[in-house]
């Protein structure tokens, strides 16, 4: 059942990409109306997948990379629905649909078998640490999509760009605050489980790199020189660092976060 739903979600996301490409190619009202439908359906599918997982395992779906990714795609979708109410840009719809399709393609390579929690993960910190990470990375993901729009539509009028810039800023502040919580809960947990609040584990180090990049953005936005395009670039780079922290580190740089 979960396998079919997963495949269905993927196809729905691909469909969303195609519809949005068509919208950009030849705008039509019916396409505008149809555009969010596969995304709504995909969110419903993901909700069912996660609910099944909860009933099967008896715990929250926050214990491995697969569960993390499915949850994150759902949160990005919810954030996207929220943003979309006041941002009717086909490019935004396309950017989100494309990003989610890519995330989902990655998800396919992750092991999805249900395993009991290993001793290191049996901690009261697990939920707080992982849930904040999902929220933080989702905020950065949506900020990334808006950053792309900012860079692509740079010739738009100033007022429209300013609105996008403001949204990016709000998202990054939320993401940055949540990422701070991720790192703090991770450090406190690490002190409890590994006897070291910081060990330069690759995942740990890259979460710090991510934090530093967004800190640079928050400083950059306050200078006249770095405002605007350069800040938008930092948000785009920031999310690429997020993706590397999430997937690249797990694949290329083995460390203490072996289960993630």
């Amino acid at each position, binding site marked *: 059942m979960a396998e079919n739903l997963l495949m269905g979600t993927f196809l729905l996301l691909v469909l969303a990409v195609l519809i949005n490409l068509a919208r950009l190619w030849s705008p039509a009202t019916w396409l505008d109306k149809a555009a969010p439908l596969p995304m709504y359906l995909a969110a419903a599918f993901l909700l069912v997948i996660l609910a099944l997982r909860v009933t099967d395992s008896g715990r929250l779906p926050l214990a491995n990379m697969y569960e993390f990714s499915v949850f994150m795609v759902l949160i990005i979708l919810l954030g996207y629905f929220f943003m979309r109410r006041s941002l009717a840009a086909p490019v935004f719809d396309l950017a989100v649909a494309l990003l989610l399709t890519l995330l989902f393609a990655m998800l396919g390579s992750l092991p999805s078998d249900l395993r009991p929690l290993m001793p290191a993960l049996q901690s009261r910190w697990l939920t707080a640490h992982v849930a904040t990470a999902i929220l933080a990375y989702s905020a950065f993901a949506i900020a990334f999509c808006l950053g792309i729009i900012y860079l692509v539509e740079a010739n738009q009028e100033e007022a429209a760009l300013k609105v996008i810039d403001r949204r990016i800023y709000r998202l990054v502040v939320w993401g940055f605050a949540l990422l701070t919580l991720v790192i703090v809960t991770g450090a406190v947990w690490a002190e409890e489980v590994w*006897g070291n609040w910081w060990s330069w584990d690759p995942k740990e180090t890259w979460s710090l790199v991510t934090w530093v990049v967004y800190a640079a953005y928050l400083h950059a936005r306050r200078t006249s020189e770095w405002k605007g395009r350069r800040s938008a670039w930092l948000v785009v780079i920031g999310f690429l660092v997020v993706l590397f922290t999430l997937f690249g580190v797990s694949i290329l740089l083995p460390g203490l976060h072996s289960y993630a």
Partner: protein
Amino acid sequence: MLDKQKKANKDLIAWLSSMKFAIYLLILVGAVTALGTIIPQGEAPAFYLHTYGDGVGAVINLLTLGHLYQAWWFYLLMLVLTLAILVCAFQRLRRARSITTAGSLVFHLAIVVILAGAGWSLGYARSALVDVAEQQAVNLADYGFGAGQLTLNSFAIEYYPDFQPRQYTSDISLTGYEQQDYNLKINVNNPLQAGNLKVYQSNWGWMLKIKATTNGSTQVMDIKDYDTFPLGPGPDNAVRVIFLPDYAEDQHGAFSRTTLPNNPCLGLSLLQSGRTVDMALIAPGEEVRMGQYRFSFEDYAYYSGLQIKYDPGVNLVFAGFILLLLGLLGRYWRLFFAREGD
């Protein structure tokens, strides 16, 4: 001349506290920390020469990029970061009149507090991994800690139905540490805490008791699973042990079905000058003759790998974390709670 010096100082302070410097410094810190995950850390100089070639390898060794997070210039970078934050904070002190600016100040100073805590740990923290067999005790002083005795009363592994480990638990006693006694069952995620000293469940294994007799002299040894132990007389002989707690055999040979002691069996190898000359498998209470020795398998028990850590800096780091979060809340409270910001 004096004026020139003054102006230079002023310029330096202005540069250190400028937003532009902050951005470049942050990007530099990010790039340097990332570099440490790409170059394998903690290897010997020869490793880098071999892996990266003579040219690049020499540069890596010269800049100690193989021990990047412990390099003097990395500490210097952290010091510059601290200095920049302090200079910036000092200048803003006068303007910190709103919750927003005060929050920003607290947030930045929290980073300095965390770095100070890390520095304190760097100088004064001690840590040791000690393997203690059941019913045995170690003196903390032997490992560079204060006086005190750590005893492992018992060790247990809990399993899931599919034999995956669920939890490792050590029942330990710490006596005479800073005039206090502690008795606690620790497990992964629940260490014992006695002031700035913590004891963690970190590892486990089997401790095997073996008796070796040769020419009327008897030697009783406690050997850890997979370890090699020198035998007397003569410097060349040694015995290596491999414990199979749940012994079974198939076409590939002997193996252990689970990690439970359902059918314990001990594999013994007699080594001479590092070469295996004889091998045998015996059950508890059994004896075997190999070379000039008669071995008997007396007993087996768990040992627990306990990590002992004394770290006075960690409390300061955690205080820094709280300040960091409070500062963040103050700095962005409007954005979080009201639908406005700057």
